[in-house]
């Protein structure tokens, strides 16, 4: 191995330069344009535990999307049955379990089946059973269709959430789907986690419903709710006194208009009271529907309901044709802004449940970085000093390898676009301690060879040769552990596994290859006679 020293030195130089190039973006603030065009420009990513931020694990209750689909289909079915003049006695939606339909005449069975099969490919009408001579069908959702609806719900939820977060303005958000109808969200550097989480989790289903003024609210509250009606509440917090109040409304269940027709939502300030409100714009279809609704219900009250909470219920003064509406309420500026964001991005197709939430405040993140790096430097310095004292010149060579190691690890992180986490810093510190091992193995072997009376150069040769396999062996086991951790670990632990793996490989490279080059240089080129080890 004492041959081709030049080539080997060249390789080392290349690696070092390459590593430094990858490190530059993380170290300097502004890169000159000529750099960004050709050379790598990715900084090292910092994990949430070092930057501060939120990690969320949401589950989309996709089954509810199936339920609402069935609800919708049951309305369509009523319409279609009427159109085809098929009379029915009973049609009830059972949520995800399907629809129960009782026809009036058994002669209609075939025409029903023909109509149904043609128009509802996602459903299975099943075979008719008979109750009191009338055919009864239990219509169910086909499993494939159910899977498709649920998957679409997750995809749509993902898009909507991504939309909302975009508008919220987060740098480098990470939003990913995961197994089991889940979505994983990571938002680094969030200052107000509560707002962000509220924004993400809001279903934001906007509905316009008529207030039932023909019946009394008090009677309904006692339990006598008229058919087709429901009670929903308006909760408001007085901005000045902080007092909460809940006002019940008796509403017609039927939704006249939903938020899917909204094209824009903006925050405006009411000049009279200096209060913010949200101004909505509908698309042409929505505008027409709105015109129709307001035209048919003048002087009646139209409740604006968001996620089953009443926001306001103004009186319809006149037919509204411009396709614009207003949502007022006692909003703070921030509430109004968040509402506008959520309406613009659209409603979630199904509610989401928070399964896991990990938040690291920015102050802790900063402290962790400082403490992590401080301990790394202290540990590094101690090890470097020790090696220099114990192995003298050879120890210093090992120290050079160690420092190169650290450079390689950091640039390796930048190269792979990996994330540096707090356990990752621990991994670097571990590598500092363990990388010395390879050198120690080699040096001890060299000492042994010297004791046997071999020449320095022969001892070096023998030392490196014998130690090589042992080094590889020993490091492989730690690599196995690192690989397993990478596979099954989450965020910070993955960061640890990555830094550990890169560190091990880098330390093998520096210990076996780089130090050998230095030794060979000293003994071949500089013709050193005695080895100080």
């Amino acid at each position: 191995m004492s041959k081709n020293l030049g080539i080997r030195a060249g390789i080392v130089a290349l690696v070092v330069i390459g590593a430094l190039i990858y490190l530059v973006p993380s170290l300097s603030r502004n890169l000159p344009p000529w750099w960004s065009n050709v050379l790598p420009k990715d900084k090292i990513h910092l994990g949430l535990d070092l930057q501060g931020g939120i990690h969320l694990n949401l589950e989309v209750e996709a089954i509810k999307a199936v339920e609402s689909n069935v609800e919708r289909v049951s309305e369509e079915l009523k319409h279609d049955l009427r159109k085809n003049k098929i009379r029915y006695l009973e049609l009830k939606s059972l949520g995800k379990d399907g629809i129960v339909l009782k026809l009036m005449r058994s002669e209609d069975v075939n025409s029903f089946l023909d109509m149904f099969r043609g128009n509802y490919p996602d459903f299975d009408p099943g075979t008719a059973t008979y109750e009191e001579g009338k055919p009864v069908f239990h219509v169910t959702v086909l499993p494939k269709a159910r899977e498709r609806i649920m998957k679409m719900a997750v995809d749509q939820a993902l898009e909507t959430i991504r939309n909302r977060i975009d508008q919220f303005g987060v740098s480098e958000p990470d939003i990913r789907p995961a197994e089991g109808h889940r979505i994983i969200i990571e938002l680094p550097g969030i200052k107000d986690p509560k707002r962000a989480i509220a924004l993400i989790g809001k279903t934001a289903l906007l509905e316009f419903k008529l207030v039932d003024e023909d019946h009394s609210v008090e009677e309904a509250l006692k339990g006598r709710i008229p058919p087709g009606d429901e009670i929903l509440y308006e909760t408001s917090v007085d901005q000045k006194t902080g007092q909460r109040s809940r006002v019940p409304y008796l509403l017609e269940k039927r939704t006249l208009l939903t938020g899917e027709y909204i094209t824009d939502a903006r925050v405006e300030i009411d000049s009279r009271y200096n209060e913010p409100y949200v101004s909505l714009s509908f698309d042409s279809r929505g505008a027409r529907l709105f015109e129709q609704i307001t035209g048919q219900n003048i002087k009646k009250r139209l409740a604006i309901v968001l996620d089953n909470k009443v926001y306001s219920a103004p009186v319809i003064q006149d037919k509204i044709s411009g396709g614009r509406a207003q949502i007022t309420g006692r909003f703070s500026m921030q509430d109004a802004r968040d509402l506008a964001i959520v309406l613009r991005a659209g409603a979630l197709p199904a509610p989401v449940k928070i399964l896991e939430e990990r938040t690291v405040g920015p102050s802790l993140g900063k402290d962790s970085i400082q403490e992590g790096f401080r301990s790394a430097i202290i540990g590094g310095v101690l090890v470097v000093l020790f090696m220099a004292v114990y192995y003298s010149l050879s120890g210093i060579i090992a120290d050079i390898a160690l420092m190169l190691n650290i450079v390689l690890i950091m640039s390796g992180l930048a190269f792979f676009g990996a994330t540096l986490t707090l356990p990752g810093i621990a991994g670097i510190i571990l590598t500092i301690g363990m990388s010395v091992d390879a050198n120690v193995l080699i040096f001890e072997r060299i000492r042994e060879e010297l004791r046997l009376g071999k020449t320095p150069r022969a001892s070096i040769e023998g030392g490196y040769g014998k130690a090589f396999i042992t080094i590889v062996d020993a490091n492989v086991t730690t690599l196995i552990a690192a690989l397993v951790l990478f596979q099954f670990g989450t965020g910070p632990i993955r960061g640890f596994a990555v830094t550990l793996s890169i560190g091990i490989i880098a330390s093998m490279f520096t210990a076996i290859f780089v130090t050998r080059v230095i030794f060979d240089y000293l003994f071949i080129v500089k013709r050193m006679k005695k080895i100080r080890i």
Partner: protein
Amino acid sequence: MEFIKPDVNINFVGNRKWAFLLSGSLILATLVLLAWRGGPNYGVDFTGGVLIQVRLDQPHSPGEIKNALRPINLQNSIIQRFGEESASEYLIRVTKTDVELTGLSDRVRDALISSFGKGVDIRRVEMVGPKVGKDLREKALFAIFYAILFIAIYISGRFELKWIMSGVMALSLAVVVYLTSSFGMSVTWLIVIALLVTLGLCWALKLKYALGAIIALIHDVTITVGAFALTDREISLAIIAAFLTLVGYSLNDTIIVFDRIRENARRYRRRPFIEVMNESINETLSRTILTSSTTLVAVAALYVFGGGVIHDFAFAMLVGICVGTYSSIFVASPVLLIWERKMADKPGRARGEKNRARVKST
């Protein structure tokens, strides 16, 4: 400079009785401690729940903090001081399982502010719902299981060069664990069973080096878990990661020593095995002590200066490295010796001792 002189010759293996005594009592103490506490102290990662790290303006007693949480019905949470004395940082661990997760940290902050004033800083929140807790438990289990599997395969293959044997062992291990897992046993028991099966297979398939190494590993992890139980630290995902790293690291050590033993055993076929072993250990002593020292120094820096969050992780590594080094010398090697002795009693398995006896008698 040399700490360990080249002609050092400490009778490590000869003193193995003392070592067994020490190890045995430590392991026993660990098991007793665990049984008494009802299992390891699992963190929110595995049990589900909420962990909130807060920093207050001034130090307050856990009782005061519990009182502050009374308005939101969390007065039964576990309060622990965190980090350095001067920091007045506390960990609030909510033990109730039916708590509404959304907005919990804000309710906690508001409650604390109304009791202690504005200087309340929520440093970190970890809320793990039951579903995710179960997921993480399973992940940890799989990680440990696969680590055992791969390491068992690797050691057997590497040392005995019996790759087929190790393949057989891997397969049997997988089958046995699959069968037992279908009985729905808990995480910890499955791992215990996997380990026992591995040991049994090593014994049956005559993989002596693997046997020694794995016994040393079990020894190391058990004692480290004991250290955690003793100091009442929580076992979180990061700690499991530390354990796995320990396993890798301890194996490092053990492999170095075994390598030397094998090399010397091949070279000195006629010498009694116990002598070969002792010599090998002494030869590698320098390297073993040195590497452990440098790694310990580095990890000690992490322990002292690294801050509260990584503290437990550093502790695991500290204990693990010490025990790992000890076990390579005093546990793994004696196991080999016991094996060799057992094998030497069988006919046709001369290993130096029988030769010597033969030579002496002529």
